[in-house]
Each structure stands twice: as structure tokens, then as C-alpha cells.
């Protein structure tokens, strides 16, 4: 489904964010990327939908080279891939509904969408997406009035509007407390299982990785240093985890509330 080949990204200031990274993603996977902050996780995810242009290497999406796509072609690839962000990246002044509908912009005709006109089908889709993540009653509120957890659900609903085949989640729970983290990842897991949406997610906490991953890759200083299945990661102890992760690694100690959250 997704094939990353020898991906390298060097920023104009000379920082090497990714160095020769290669891996593949199969449909239906919940692939978690671990690594220190600054290890290149965000850069990697942003290269996949070309929010950042890679310096070298190729990314194949269904055999089509994303790195060579431009204009209309690139937008058609992007709209199949949803994205969820650490800082939610909602337009805070706009309503929840507008934020969610914005997820449909890749499909909506440009003219009407500029004056906030969407088809009845799109509105229906928005209502379903909001109901699915439990924010239907917040639709009219401004996004900034919502709590962090609710804002991230708006982010997920926005991604859902794209009817995506894959969702890129860049540290989706790093700004949230452990209970909310499970709730948000629970939603992603549900989408992964029920809708067969492939999830590509970067995470910080070992126990969350162990709980949700179907496969794990580890990045360190821009290089892919570790690959493992869910079994491998479940067997991993804190010492090994810290070896990839460095001293920043931590547990959420959310084991106690895991049952309640999911």
C-alpha cells in the first residue's frame, strides 16, 4: 500500500532529519513509529503526504510516486490520507462543524466551498463523523471552546471526512493526559479495526505502543534503527525501550485506567 524507499531529508540549515529510511506499510496495519523528539518522526509523516518535500528517495502510494506528484495529482493523493496532529491544528475561531467540513475540501468543488457551501451528502457525512467521535452536540461551538481531548476528536472527525484509506497521526496524544490518550487512541483503533483504515502513528509512551501497535519501527537521529512486530514490542522491557528511545522514555502508568478508557 505504502512503500518508503531510501528516504532522506536535509533541511536548508543542514540538519539531516531523515537518512536512508526504507519500510513498507501493509493495508490494515496499526504501525507505530517510536523515537526521541527530533529523531525525524514528524518529518517522516509529513514527507508521506508531502507537507515537506523529501531531499532524496521515493514514496510509493499504490505504486504511484508521491514525491513526483504535483498539483491535482498530489491533492488527490493527499485527500486519501487523513492526518491528526499533536497540537490538533484546528482553526480555533471557526466552529467545530466548519473545522470538520474542512476535511472535505479535497473533494468539494472549489467555488461553493469558498463561501462555505457543502453538499447535503457532505453535511450528512460530517454529522456521522462527529457522532462517531462523540462531539455531535458541540457542532456549533467555536473550536477553541472545547477541551484538549474534544479538540483532538474534532481532528479525527476532520480526517474521517476525507474517507481516508490511511491516517497519519503525529504524536496525537502528546498534549493530552493518559486517560484522554487512551480514549483518542481507542478511536483510532476502532477506525483501524472496523473501517480497515491503515494507521501510521508516532508515539512517546511504551505502554501505549505495547497496547495499540500491530507493528513498530524505531527512528534514531533520522535512521531507521528498529523494526518489530507487536509480539516483539510486548516482550520488550523498559531497558531495551530506553535503548532506542533514550532517557526521555517513560510510561504513562495508565494501566490502571486502561479498562475504563477503552
Amino acid at each position, binding site marked *: 500500500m505504502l512503500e518508503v524507499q531510501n528516504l532522506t531529508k536535509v533541511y536548508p540549515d543542514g540538519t539531516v532529519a531523515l537518512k536512508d529510511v526504507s519500510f513498507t506499510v501493509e493495508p490494515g496495519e496499526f504501525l507505530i513509529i517510536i523515537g526521541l523528539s527530533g529523531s525525524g518522526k514528524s518529518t517522516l509523516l509529513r514527507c508521506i503526504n508531502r*507537507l515537506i518535500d523529501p531531499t532524496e528517495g521515493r514514496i510509493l502510494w499504490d505504486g504511484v510516486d508521491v514525491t513526483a506528484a504535483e498539483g491535482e495529482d498530489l*491533492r488527490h493523493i493527499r485527500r486519501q490520507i*487523513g492526518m491528526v496532529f499533536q497540537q490538533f491544528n484546528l482553526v480555533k475561531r471557526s466552529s467545530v462543524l466548519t473545522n470538520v467540513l474542512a476535511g472535505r*475540501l479535497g473533494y468539494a468543488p472549489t467555488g461553493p466551498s469558498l463561501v462555505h457551501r457543502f453538499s447535503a451528502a457532505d453535511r450528512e457525512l460530517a454529522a456521522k463523523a462527529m457522532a462517531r467521535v462523540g462531539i455531535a452536540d458541540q457542532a456549533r461551538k467555536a473550536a477553541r471552546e472545547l477541551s484538549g481531548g474534544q479538540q483532538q476528536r474534532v481532528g479525527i472527525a476532520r480526517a474521517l471526512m476525507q474517507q481516508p484509506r490511511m491516517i497519519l497521526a503525529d504524536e496525537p496524544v502528546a498534549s493530552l493526559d493518559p486517560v484522554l490518550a487512551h480514549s483518542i487512541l481507542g478511536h483510532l483503533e476502532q477506525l483501524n479495526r472496523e473501517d480497515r483504515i491503515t494507521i501510521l502513528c508516532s508515539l512517546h509512551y511504551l505502554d501505549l505502543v505495547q497496547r495499540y501497535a500491530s507493528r513498530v519501527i524505531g527512528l534514531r537521529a533520522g535512521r531507521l534503527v528498529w523494526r518489530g512486530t507487536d509480539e516483539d514490542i510486548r516482550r520488550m522491557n523498559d531497558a531495551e525501550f530506553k535503548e532506542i528511545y533514550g532517557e526521555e522514555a517513560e510510561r504513562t502508568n495508565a494501566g490502571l485506567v486502561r479498562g475504563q478508557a477503552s
Partner: protein
Amino acid sequence: MKKKTGIPAPELPSLVPPWAAALASVAVPGLGQALARSVWRGVLILASVLSVTAMFVWRVRLIGYLQSTPGAMLAKAMELRPGFTVIVLAGTALVWLANVRDAWLRASRRRGGPLVFALILVSFFALGWQISEIDPASLVTDFPQAMEPLGKVVWPWEAAVTREPILEEAGASIRVPTQAGGGPAPDPVEEGKPRLVANPSSGELSRIDENNNLVPGTTITLTGTGFRPGLPVELWWRDPLRNAFQLRKGGNYLSVVPDAGGSFTTDVMMPYSLGPVGEGRDEPHRVEARQTVARAAARASEALRLVVERIIETIIMGMMATLFGIILAIPVSFLAARNIMSASPLTLGIYYLTRTILNIVRAIEPLIWALIAVVWVGLGPFAGIVALTIHSVAALGKLYSEAIEGIDPGPIEAIQATGATRLQNIMYAVVPQMISPFVSFSIYRWDVNVRMSTVIGLVGGGGVGFILVQYIRLLDYRAAGIAVWFIAVTVAVLDYVSAEIRRRFQ
């Protein structure tokens, strides 16, 4: 690292022993500090002492300008302004002593403390008091004179309405010079109208002879009939150029009260005429009797109407200047936003250039721009609009560019990730973020512009300030008061409205 200020204690040992530093500062203030390696402190002290001395000499020369020697001038200053002279002289002497002590302390690697600078400040403020002619006593002594005009300004509303008089009038023609047949006949009798008869109906005007003495004119007996009994009648003179003025007798305006039958008889002397006499005009002079029989209903006075018209003009000026300012500031603000212009050295150069120009334009007050605009496009509201627009572009350009710099790139990235086009991205991620600061800055600027346009009229830029300054120069304090009231109310209302709109738009 070298310290720029002389305030911290020196880090390197003094070049000279303390006694030498002190001695050097006796000769030249600050020299000892400089030798003790507190160069900036020394320069500051020397510059202060020199400027205090120079200003003191200037003021003493002004006070004692009739004296010929410096000593006599100083004595005169001592006599006329003892407080000032003593404080500055004593202050300077103390500064000198403190400076010597300071040099000694510095050279012995101790802090000098702020004493010398405190004393310098005292001398400066004593000079400042004298130079700016501060005279608190005048606040009290001149107050009684100011009471009357200030009272009119504080409560001007008597001048806000007028009640036009309803007049009964009659006139009689008078010929100059004396005619053999007596002069023109009285006006024909009209039923129900008063009538005035002059006898004789020709004569000589009063005039000033070559020795500046008044040569009295012919005395005319006026007989009025058909007036309302009991109400005073004013007597007016109208020359052939149709200038009318009220006749006087013994310095007072002439006024007669008709008897019970509505008749009166009075003598008037033909007045001294300001107009060119006997310039070939064949029209007669007229003497007129005017009786105010009633007053019309109250209506807005001319002053009130003018002020209202000009206040509207002022608000419109502010609106137009704000509109033009917004339109021009939007493109400029993008050039002045660092995050947009940091792509290449060229754009960064444009950014710095734009910022510099905006800062300079903003530093020049709208009043100064108005003076320039008046020269450019002539007196009137357009000059004011030009001035306010120029200043608004600079002010709004800076505020807008800061709003653009403060934009959160997260939502832009998120919308981009959905496969949206550039245009959709601008409408969904950029515009919603910009709209709040744009609206609140623009409303605030409108508020500022209206406030400014009340002042800009003072230099000929149109608006209410234009007539305010006219009324003040004509000493028409009531009309000026009306203008001041309207300005105050307009500014207060606008201030409130603008704050309210901005609050709701947060």
C-alpha cells in the same frame, strides 16, 4: 567586555592615585573619573556641567540684558530671580564638589553612587523651571478673567438656539447734499403699515475735517406713525452701498418708544459715513425704523447647525481615511511581515525597507502630515483625509503585519493535508485567523482617525476643528463651546462603540 555606562564600579585599577583623580576633577569635572577608567561617567559629568553652565549663562544674559558686564547681569538676575539664581549656582557648586568626591571614590575602586547625578538633575530642573516660564501663580491670579469665556465654553447652549425677531419696518429716503426743494418725498401711505417721515429729507453727513474734528451733519426730525405702542423702535441708517448700521446718540444706540397712539418724534444727526461719499451713485440714503413686535419659534442657531455639519464631516473624514488606510495597508502589511518576506535576501531587504519607511511615516504626527497635505491639495477635508490616510497606512501596516506574523501555521498545514487547493486553504485556515485582529485594528484606527480629524482642522484640514479655531479667534466662546461639546461627546461615544465592537469580536 567593555561597559558602555560609567555606573558600575571600574574593573581595571585606576591609572592615577585617588588624590590625583580628585585634583583632576577639580580642574575639569569628569577628568578624574576618566583617569580612573570610568570614561563614560566622566564624559557624562563633563557634558552635564557644561550644558548647565551654558544654559545658566543664556538665562542670566536674558534677565540682565540691560547690563553691560557679566557681574552686573548676575547681580540683576540675583535681584529679579533670586530663587532660580541661587539654586542653580549652589547646585552647580555642589555638583562640582560631588564630582571631586566621586573621582576620588572611583580611583580608590569604590562605587561613586548616584549623588553627583542627583545634583545634576536638580540643576537641570531648576533651569527647566525658569526656561519654560512656569508660573503657577497665574493659575490663580488670571482665573477671574478666564471665568467668563470658560463659562461660555462650559455651558454654551444659549447660543444653540435662535428666535428670529418679527419686525415692523418703515423707512424714509434722505438725499445728500442739501437740496433746495427739501429732498425726496416720504414713502406713500400703506394701509396697516407704519410710516416714517423725515424733515428735512436732505442734508449733509457728519464728517471729519483736516484737524480730525467731527463736523456735525444736518439734524433731521423723524416722525413715526402706526407703530405698536410701548415696544421700542430701533433707528438704522442705510447708505447707498446698502451697508446698514444702527444710529447712535451720545454713544448709545438710539431707541424710542412710541406713545399710546403708536407715534413718536425724535431728532437724529446724519451720521459719519464710512462709505465713499458722492461716488456718483444716484440712490438716496435711507433712515429706517425697526420695531420688534414678536419673536419666531426657537430653532437651531447657525453655530449649532455649522457644528453639526462639521461633526458629520469629521466622522466621514475619519471613515474615508480609515477605508483608504485599510485598502493601502493590506498589501503593505504583507511586505512588512517577516514570516512572509524571509524567503530570500531580496525579500528580506524589501521587508527591512518597508519596516523603516513605516516607522518613519508613523513617527510624524498626523498634524504635520496635514500641514503638508494642505500645501499639496489645498485647504479642506480632503487635505485632512490625505494626512490621516498616510498615517493610517503606516500604523495599520505595522499592526496588520504583526497579525500576519502571529498567524498559527498549524491549521494551514492541516488544511493542506486534506488535499485542499491554495485558495481553499486561504479561506479556511488563513482568513479566520486574520479576521479578528484585522477587524479590531481597523475599528480602533477609525476611532483614532475621528479623534485626530477633530484636531486636524486646526491647521486647515477640514472638519470641526476648522470652525472651532475660527470661533476661538473671533472670541465667539459660546459657538466654540458648542464645538467642544460635540467633539467630546462624539469622541466618547466612538471610544465606547469601538471598544464594544472589538470586545465582541475577540
